[in-house]
């Protein structure tokens, strides 16, 4: 793409039940600061069957302009059709910077879009800024499972980044903000669909949703088997908390994969995160760096989790946990 006439920051937005996804609002906040650094406008594009309401939300959350691709074929998320729509918007609007949240769809779309546009993509970023000298975006991201941090710059245009969920807070919405809504045409036809969804298997989850929970309780390999998770669940119910696990506990088959917290699991940002028999490997911590207070119960005083926790108990969970739960019951009784 030609760098000369490329300008502005474009957020590739996503819809969630017809509304602008919370991760897209976070991405708008990131885009707002970059657009400020460049002195250029911030746009958002949405591709869907009904784009009016989310377009208004995008303006309230910081967009100066919203590009819409409105097409019944986009009613349900489809990787190939949405990719085609986003690529079309990028070709027509020539952004200097294009941002997307690293959601399930973002993980599939951003790399293919970058490849299609011949652009560089910085993945899984926590923070981005504009280098005042070069005017280029500098993106910071964890690498080696979080054991190192890298600052990277994309060559070419657009400069692309995918942003880790919860890395940015959405801006306070301002319903009085004004912005243009610009409908765009992108040719789409059903024959572009090759990947076909056969079946969706929703796990029945009676508990609190991990991603939005105010308190999360999680267990690791040190629990030794599936049974202790029942005790953790009981305590979680008492606290109104969500329940999660380390990858080691998932790989052992003790709990479903959807419980996994970490780099390749869920990202959580509760006020309180209580870990039991989890060592705190960097790949686990990658999923909970947004937790305000971390509590660790671990029998090993040297465990990494105790270096990252606010409160710690060094001891055997089998002795610590029943007393902890009992006291909670008295306190919350």
């Amino acid at each position, binding site marked *: 793409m030609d760098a000369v006439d490329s300008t502005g920051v474009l957020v590739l937005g996503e819809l969630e039940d017809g509304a602008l996804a919370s991760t897209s609002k976070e991405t708008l906040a990131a885009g707002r600061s970059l657009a400020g650094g460049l002195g250029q406008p911030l746009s958002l594009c949405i591709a869907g069957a009904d784009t009016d309401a989310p377009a208004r939300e995008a303006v309230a959350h910081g967009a100066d302009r919203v590009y819409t691709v409105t097409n019944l074929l986009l009613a349900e998320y489809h990787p190939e059709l949405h990719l085609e729509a986003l690529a079309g918007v990028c070709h027509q609007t020539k952004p200097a910077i294009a941002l997307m949240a690293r959601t399930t769809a973002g993980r599939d779309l951003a790399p293919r879009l970058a490849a299609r546009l011949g652009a560089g993509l910085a993945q899984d970023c926590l923070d981005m800024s504009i280098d005042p000298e070069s005017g280029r975006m500098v993106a910071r991201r964890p690498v080696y499972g979080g054991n190192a941090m890298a600052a990277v710059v994309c060559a070419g245009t657009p400069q692309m980044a995918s942003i880790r969920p919860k890395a940015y807070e959405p801006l306070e919405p301002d319903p009085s903000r004004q912005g243009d809504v610009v409908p765009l045409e992108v040719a789409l036809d059903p024959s572009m669909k090759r990947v076909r969804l056969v079946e969706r298997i929703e796990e029945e989850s009676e508990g609190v949703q991990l991603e939005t929970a105010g308190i999360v309780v999680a267990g690791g390999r040190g629990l030794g088997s599936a049974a202790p998770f029942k005790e953790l669940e009981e305590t979680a119910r008492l606290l109104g908390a969500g329940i999660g696990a380390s990858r080691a506990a998932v790989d052992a088959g003790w709990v479903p994969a959807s419980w996994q917290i970490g780099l390749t699991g869920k990202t959580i940002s509760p006020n*309180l995160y209580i870990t039991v028999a989890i060592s705190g490997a960097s790949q686990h911590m990658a999923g909970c760096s947004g937790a305000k207070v971390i509590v660790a119960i671990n029998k090993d005083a040297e465990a990494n989790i105790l270096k990252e926790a606010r409160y710690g108990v060094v001891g055997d969970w089998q002795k610590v946990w029943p*007393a902890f739960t009992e006291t909670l019951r008295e306190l919350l009784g």
Partner: protein
Amino acid sequence: MPLNILVLAKQVIDPEMPLSAFKVERENRRVSVPSTLPPVVNGFDENAVEAALRIKDGQEATVTVLSMGQGFALEVMKKPLSMGADTLVLLQDDAFLNTVDSFAIALALTTAIRKLGAFDLIIAGRQASDWDNAQVPLAVAEALGLPSVTTGKKVEVGDGLVTVERQTPEGAEVVEAPLPALVTVSNELGQPRYPTLRGIMAATRKQPVIWSAQDLGLDASDLRPRVETVDLYVPVTDAECELIQGEDEAESGRLLALKLREAKLI
């Protein structure tokens, strides 16, 4: 016609290494570990080999493993052969020094895949445990015009289709795509099989196909990175941990609950 399966596998430093061995050379913007610590085949790529071999268990198929890097520990990269893969192709060249740039890696892999000829299915890992990019396979799929499905935990082939059960945050979904296609897999696929003694013997006798950048018709200018590292450092954590300690472990548990109450966290 046997099914032709290609597995993309990267050699990485062992993510399970002790942290004391992990050195960030900030001035060179790269990570180093002592030469006594052998590299490994990226964990998710062993899952990819396993996924290919499970297909091969049920139907006639050949499994080719393809890797790009500046240099290789041959005994490490032969592990997929000892698990049961048929052929190992190594793209090895000093020009491949930038094995963190997804674009350069994808270009080399794509060029080699075209040179290898027709195939039905490409299986890759969901991400490489060095830079955790999760980008190379999708760039390869885009360049080859293939449909792609990511984070598979079950991969089946039949009637010209690949059917993938994939992990999602809400549970799972089953998707299918016409062959040729690209699929990435995750640890939910399950333990990769252990090499058998027979497999190890067979692997010793097999020699990898080795191609240089020149063999692929690529030079340094083709491989210029699209993402450049301008800084690399160890993040600092500033958490100050308050240890809660009672007379015994049960009392510690009790005191912890009281502490959380006092801090108005519960």
